[in-house]
């Protein structure tokens, strides 16, 4: 009996979570511009989406910022994680606590504090400020993702490589780096996702007509909402679903290989 209850409950919760989104996607195929009355099947909104310059430009901006921010923050963050592991205890703790600030701060506070910084130094809002903001909140997650992995790294390999004549840099890249790759990749993906998804921080620092996907969706939903937004949601869901399934399959294949 309780098994049935558990199944029903799980189903209800997921129904609650998905119903609004699925309805939104359902109406993306509506031939009329209504979110409440379905008047026939049509793909016009998908067509309009691909012609919407505002959204396309915002999408490009989002991809550029997310790629650059995640690459830069992964590099700086990985270096920081490694370097910090060698710091003295109290220095390390202090910097780690500072690292937690962007993670724990409500994003509106991160947003306005950076805005105040830029305003005080007269830096106009735009691509640069958004990029800086994204890097700032991405790096802590990179550090927090990589630091636990460092504990599992076999540092003897590093010393052995040096004994065999490798320079410290070479030894690092050939002996240590490969062990870190899974951690680095997942840190990179996390930073990338955070940047794509961010709304509030970007909203406060964006300034001069620089929009990302999330800010443009916000602006559009404040006025007449064309159903191309629904189409956008459908496509985003499809992308995320594809990525998640791919990651799942990749993981399963990997664990099957490891089993061999």
């Amino acid at each position, binding site marked *: 009996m309780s098994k049935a209850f*558990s199944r029903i*409950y*799980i189903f209800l*919760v997921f129904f609650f*979570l*998905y119903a*609004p*989104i699925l*309805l*939104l996607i359902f109406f993306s195929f509506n031939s009329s511009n209504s*979110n*409440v009355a379905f008047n026939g099947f049509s793909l016009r909104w998908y067509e309009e989406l691909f012609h919407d310059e505002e959204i396309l430009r915002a999408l490009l901006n989002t991809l550029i910022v997310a790629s650059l921010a995640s690459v830069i923050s992964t590099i*700086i*963050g990985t*270096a*920081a994680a*490694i*370097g910090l592991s060698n710091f003295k205890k109290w220095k390390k703790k202090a*910097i780690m606590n*500072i690292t*937690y*600030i*962007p*993670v*724990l701060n*409500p*994003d*509106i506070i991160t947003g*306005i*504090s*950076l*805005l*105040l*910084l830029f*305003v005080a130094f007269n830096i106009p809002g735009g691509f640069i400020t958004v990029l800086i903001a994204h*890097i*700032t909140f991405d*790096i802590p*997650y990179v550090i*927090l993702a990589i630091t636990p992995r460092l504990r599992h790294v076999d*540092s003897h390999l*590093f010393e052995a490589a040096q004994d065999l004549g490798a320079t*410290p840099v070479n*030894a690092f890249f050939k002996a240590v780096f490969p062990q870190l790759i899974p951690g680095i990749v997942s840190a990179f993906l996390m930073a990338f*996702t955070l940047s794509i*998804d961010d*709304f*509030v921080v970007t909203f406060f620092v964006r300034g001069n007509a620089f929009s990302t996907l*999330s800010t443009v*969706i*916000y602006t559009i*939903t404040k006025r007449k*909402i064309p159903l191309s*937004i629904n189409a956008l*949601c459908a496509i*985003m*869901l499809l992308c*995320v*679903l594809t990525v998640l399934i791919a990651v*799942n399959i990749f993981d399963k294949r990997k664990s099957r290989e490891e089993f061999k």
Partner: protein
Amino acid sequence: MKSRVIAVPYVIWSGIFIIVPTLFVGYFAFTDSNGTFTFENISKIGKYANVFGRSIVYAAVATVLCLIFGYLLAYFMAHLKEHQKSLCLVLLMLPMWINLVLRTQALQNILMDNGVINRLLGLLNIPSLKLLDTSFSVVLGLIYNYLPFMVLPIFTSLEKLDNKVIEAAQDLGANSVNVFTKITLPLSMPGVYSGIIMVFIPCLSTFVISEKLGGGKVYLIGNVINDMFNQNYNFNVGAAISLVMMLIMIITLVVFGFLDDETKEGIL
């Protein structure tokens, strides 16, 4: 490998872009528009006492409801078979990656006076309910957006529970209620604390959800801060309010054992 210098770029970055902005919040909070030191902004905060109160209440209600429904979900999920578990996990995480504004808009469409829910009620001859632009819709929106953030850490800590401990307790004669209250619940507390932090703080500081689902009538502290910076142009009072907000956040973290390392890892 033993190098410490490679961490320097980050130390400099964090100094400029984490510490300095935080100091600026303090600077703007304690100065007026001319830069002279003043306590005026702090005294103006008193006017917003009831907004703070309201925000804390909304966030608390949403958090408690997320906790109840979320814990149940995490518990049931943890007892599923392996392949069902990973399916549920994927399904749980998917909505988190759809844009916040889109998710809120989706909910708004359903709750509208002539939206799907009211139309269904109409078919059953039930008079339409006022669902949108109310406190109800805002709390619902908070739960809708942040439920996964409560479920995930609890699920993770329930997963880590060693079955052997439960079996041992049952061998010693504990019934299922006892098993839950004396073993499962206490051992899942780190997850619960992480979940509470991950839900309460965003709920406290939201402005998009109260704006879109509250019809401009539900005025929360996030809306005040947004107004100060984007509408009323009063950075100083805005900064002062942000300082208080940060204080509330620090208190929450301390109360829910942020200092506990396991909770920290749970947040990730």
